[in-house]
């Protein structure tokens, strides 16, 4: 067996004339937390659904747990757990009934199921709520229960499609603790997200934009390879006007708006600070603060998308 849990080669999916996933290739190492990062409509769910055997690829191949997704989707299905983007448990069944149903669907033997049932209740913090109707649970609980149902049969590979959509930060934290635990137990976790802080917790990341992979590597490697210039965070008035202004300066690499601030990539830090202050003053824009910052994945992401769009001539 190779050391990769998932091997994807030139996988594409077209819906009519529209290409949702465009010849993506990547490997996922066993036991990794692999992050698939992209904006809405980038093609994250479509890729996952092909890898899970829910959607037939238009072209290309992929091996999941060593099985070809085209030739033996049934074997793939036995090796994976999947949690779809939407909450997908039976709201009109109780917590325990949901767990037992999925255990039955995966054909688990009764003793195994009994011990896994306890494990899931423990893990999701649902002990004592076995007989609550699932519809009455809070969103965070529902998500943990869905995760529990997805790993009930102890799959080696787990696909999570935006698992933390719509839950509060505390629940998100708790959910990621579970993902880390599963990964420590040797489960390969393939997770899509558009939360950049979540992406920081991944070992390996692919940035996907308009169906293409525009960046690859661990978070730190991505930052190092993308952002070579110092980035200054600038707090000033009339941000939009300031951005347009700075864009035209030759010593400015790139400018983007982050919240109420500007992130300005410059060639050199000290020189950059001096020129920035001078230019803004000249334009009569009040400057409040300049700080050197460590680039975030968001900086990386935006830069990569920009580069990719430039390349594509958009």
């Amino acid at each position, binding site marked *: 067996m190779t050391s990769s*849990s998932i091997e994807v080669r030139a996988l594409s999916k077209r819906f009519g004339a529209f290409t949702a996933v465009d010849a993506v290739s990547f490997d996922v*190492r*066993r*036991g*990794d*937390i692999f992050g698939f990062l992209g904006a*809405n409509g980038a093609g994250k*769910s*479509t890729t996952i*659904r092909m890898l*899970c*055997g*829910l*959607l*037939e690829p238009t072209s290309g191949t992929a091996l999941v*747990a060593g099985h070809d997704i085209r030739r033996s989707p*049934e074997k793939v*299905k*036995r*090796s*994976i757990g*999947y949690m*779809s983007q*939407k*909450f*997908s*448990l*039976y*709201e*009109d*069944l109780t917590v325990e*009934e949901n767990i*037992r*149903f*999925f255990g*039955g*669907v*995966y*054909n*688990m*033997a009764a003793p*195994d199921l009994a011990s896994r049932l306890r494990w899931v209740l423990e893990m999701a913090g649902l002990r004592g709520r076995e007989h609550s109707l699932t519809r009455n649970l809070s969103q965070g609980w529902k998500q943990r229960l869905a995760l529990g*149902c997805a790993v009930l*049969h*102890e*799959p*080696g*590979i787990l696909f999570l499609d935006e698992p933390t*959509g719509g839950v509060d930060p505390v629940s998100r934290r708790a959910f990621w603790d579970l993902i*880390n635990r599963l*990964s*420590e*137990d*040797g*489960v*390969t976790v393939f997770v899509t997200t558009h939360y950049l802080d979540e992406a*920081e*917790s991944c*070992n390996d990341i692919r940035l996907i934009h308009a169906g293409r992979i525009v960046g690859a590597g661990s978070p*730190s490697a991505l930052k190092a390879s993308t952002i070579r210039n110092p980035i200054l965070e600038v707090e000033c008035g009339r941000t939009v006007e300031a951005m347009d202004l700075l864009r035209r300066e030759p010593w400015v690499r790139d400018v983007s708006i982050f919240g109420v601030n500007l992130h300005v990539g410059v060639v050199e830090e000290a020189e950059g600070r001096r020129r920035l202050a001078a230019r803004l003053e000249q334009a009569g824009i009040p400057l409040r603060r300049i700080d050197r910052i460590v680039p975030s994945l968001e900086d990386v992401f935006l830069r990569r998308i920009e580069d990719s769009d430039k390349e594509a001539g958009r």
Partner: protein
Amino acid sequence: MRKKAVAAPTVRAEMAGPVRMVEATVFASIRPIIRKEFRQIRRDPRTLVFLLALPGFLLLMFGYALNFDFKHIPLAVCDQDGTQASRDFLARLGTTEYFDILYRLDDPRLVDGLFGRDQAKVAVVVPRGFADDLSSGSGAPIQVLLDGTNSTSAGTAVGYIAAIVQSASLRMTTQVLEGRGFRGLSVPVAAEVRVWYNPELRSALFLIPGLMAFVLMIIVVVSTSFSVVREKERGTMEQILVSPVRPLALIVGKTVPYALISLLSAHLALGLGYLLFRVPIRGSYPLLLLAMGLFLLGGLGQGILISTVTRTQQVAFMIAILTTLLPTFILSGFVFPIRNMPGIIQAFSFFVPARYFLSALRGIMIKGVGIGAFWEQILFLAAFAGLTITVSAVRLRRSSGVEGEGRKRR
């Protein structure tokens, strides 16, 4: 940031799952699906009530509303002759259960007002000279006036009157002739009409089997297509399809509960039909069960098939109603005889399973005939069930059942 060793992960998890599940058979996973389906039905008593009570309710409504037997038709009479003969004749009309003589008029022009106010449907006028004409043998005309607003009931009323007049005049002719000295007369040609299977010509006998087919088809197709589309809407279908469950197992698991419930429903309808409308089961019960089972299977298949091409319950409902209501009502021979339809419509009716079910049902319940009389119908029902279920299993496997699920729904 979290760093993690990539080397030497525990392989345990990756191996444990597959090995244990290899011996999974297609049918092992049916049971949990059936159990789940029953649970969901139980949690939603409204659906259950709908499935069980609707057939009975519709049977009552239609059974009484679609009653084509007309009795106690309000009758107005106008005796202008005023003789013994005319009184005898009119009295005969009143003694049948078909007519109630409600009005005795002096002037036939009053009929118009009675019809207009819906106080009478039929009027019989015996003109002056009736008795004389009768005894002279020259033929005694009477006048029958009908409210033709409802052509069916008017037609029936004409039939009744004609029959009564016929028999009355026959008797009177004989009397007159005998009075003139002829003896031992017999009518040269006497048609003796005998109606088989339904001697009283009760329309219930004709309608109830059709009504059963109609109601069962609708509830079966609607409920199964709903139960599948609901899973698609909520995303649970995707969760099942990503498991090793085979599409056929999924279909069987989802249909068995609804098949059982609709069979129960069918028996309620049979019971009501017997209690309220005295519709018997003259033929063999196992055959009836076979016909019902196949018919229901076909409907279940059709419901699932509908759900593979729709994404929302509203659309599923519309298609289900469209493909069951009109065909089973119009093209099955339920109300309108297929024989009387134009050729092209008759051709359409060949593809309506209710048509075959209906003739099998009428054959078993009303005529009490054996399988020899309707094996072709049974064969067609079996073929229809096989076709719909196979096609839907194939469509589910091709995961078209989830195609488009990826779109946003937030």
